[in-house]
């Protein structure tokens, strides 16, 4: 729990595209630019997955990307949080039902916050991150970890 507290002050984001149309990617990119400036909340893009606290996944998960996503998630240090961005990330969106898709991110890894929208506005992404920070303030454990504890 102590580590969750530390993350609260300065969560670093890692952005990962699992098969998005780039609409969400450019909005995530726009969300870190001066107009929205999430560094006010200590949020910044981490250079590597091993430095990251929050994994921002854009796009529905394709079958080829699913294994990569899982591997990335395992490489993240604890505690880890996942934000699924966009309709495709939340549920597969317009691509669900294709032979190449696994659909939503939550089919592969546990997700802590969903951001619907196609694509969500940068403000909506900020809103989601703020909501996640609020959750941390309350001391909620990340979903991924809770499940692991249950399994053990």
């Amino acid at each position: 729990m102590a580590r969750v507290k530390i993350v609260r002050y300065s969560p670093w984001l890692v952005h990962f595209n699992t098969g998005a149309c780039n609409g969400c990617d450019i909005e995530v990119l726009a969300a870190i630019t001066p107009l929205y400036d999430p560094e006010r909340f200590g949020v910044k893009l981490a250079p590597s997955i091993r430095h990251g606290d929050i994994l921002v996944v854009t796009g529905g998960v394709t079958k080829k990307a699913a294994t990569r996503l899982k591997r990335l998630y395992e490489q993240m240090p604890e505690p880890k949080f996942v934000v699924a961005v966009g309709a495709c990330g939340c549920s597969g969106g317009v691509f669900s039902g294709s032979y190449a898709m696994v659909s939503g991110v939550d089919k592969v890894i546990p997700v802590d916050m969903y951001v619907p929208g196609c694509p969500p506005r940068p403000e909506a992404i900020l809103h989601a991150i703020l909501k996640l920070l609020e959750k941390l303030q309350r001391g909620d454990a990340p979903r991924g970890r809770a499940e692991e504890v249950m399994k053990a």
Partner: protein
Amino acid sequence: MAKVPLLKEVVKLIFSKPATIQYPREETPVEPDARGRQYADLSKCIGCSLCMIECPPKAIRMEKIPEGYEVPKRNARKIYPVVDYFKCIYCYRCVTVCPTKAYVVTNEYRLASDAPVNSRELSLSTLKKAGQEPSQGKEGVNRR
């Protein structure tokens, strides 16, 4: 030579205000007709299911209107569309194909949540419960 435009820019930027919008303390300017969440106004809906058929990501499901609501006579089958906001791509195809223009459109974009959200509550709030006034008047509603 090359330094000149950059130098000018630097001086200008030192004296200018920051470009950042102080969200969430300050609202970001959103167009009033930006495509945000939409839901069906059940006093107009006739339960024809056209929006469900046309929806590209199949985000709309038709559900039975629960007991205790005054359903308009035109809606003979007593069903209404529920939009799954996690699946919805906000293309507004449902809004434009609706034969009775029953959809209420808003520019609400703050939908982030950790559990599924849909339009059930919003749609049902447009109907009178037996003997009550309908609880209308959500934020930023503009009708088409």
